């Protein structure tokens, strides 16, 4: 990261961290998602923001040699695909709930339909189809170019941690 505008970056980053820890009812959604993708594990595997709608988020990932499962096939491991789906479905709960708030994955089930085409960009689309007071329900797909021919499907649930006191 360049030094130019670093102080402004720091202020924005700390605001985003506060939003993530304390919650925010009127968040700059794209800023929060981009911040998450640009830190920690999201940064390490090279995740990127593509777009979002009322209850969905789309994220991307470029295949790299260090993300391969089996060097004999050169196919990307499923772990980075789950990570992308976990990110996208988690963020989709904020959209549906119209606020950014800490949440925790309760469970996730992934079905792998086929291996990704080596080299193709991976796209994950996560959707929150129901958000109840304590739990948000999500589903998602990952594809490598054609959403009609997915490489993986997932369903899962997230615990809305800002509602902890009501459990």
């Amino acid at each position: 990261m360049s030094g130019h505008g670093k102080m402004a970056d720091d202020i924005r980053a700390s605001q985003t961290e506060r939003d993530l820890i304390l919650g925010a009812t009127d968040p700059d959604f794209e800023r929060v998602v981009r911040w998450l993708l640009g830190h920690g594990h999201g940064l390490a595997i090279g995740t990127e923001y593509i777009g979002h709608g009322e209850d969905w988020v789309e994220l991307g990932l470029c295949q790299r040699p260090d993300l391969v499962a089996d060097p004999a096939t050169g196919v990307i491991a499923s772990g980075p695909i789950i990570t992308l789906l976990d990110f996208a479905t988690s963020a989709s709960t904020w959209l549906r709930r119209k606020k950014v708030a800490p949440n925790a994955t309760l469970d996730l089930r992934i079905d792998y339909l086929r291996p990704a085409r080596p080299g193709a960009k991976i796209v994950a689309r996560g959707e929150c189809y129901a958000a109840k007071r304590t739990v948000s329900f999500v589903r998602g797909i990952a594809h490598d170019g054609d959403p009609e021919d997915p490489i993986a499907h997932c369903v899962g649930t997230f615990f809305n941690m800002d509602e902890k006191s009501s459990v």
Partner: protein
Amino acid sequence: MKNTGMPNGQKTVDMPYAATLGLRFEQDADGEWLAIMPRADTLGGRPGFVHGGALAGMLECVAIHKVQTVAAPREGRLARPINLSISYLRGATHENCYAKAEIVRLGGRIIVVSVRVWQDDPQKPVVMGQVSLMR
């Protein structure tokens, strides 16, 4: 670190993604495998916690490794996950993660593996999951 000496004369499993996670495998005196994913900034998710995706990735790699220790690979290829069901039981803080795997069913093509991941207390798993793999 002992990470060679797999059954059937196999070498340790070569998975670039597992290396990206920092994952390593050690064998105890009884020959049982323990997976270790040392704490690293590159595994972080929401502030203060390990990313759920990194934990899921660890779980899958541990399942694939487990299959390699009990069954010869087909056509020189690693087993491929078909599906994965994972429960997140506790937030995983920025500490080392440990995992052990158990074979639930060993079939000719389909293998089911259960994996448990913990941090400081083996009796308090942070993640448990079941992986079905094809070989």
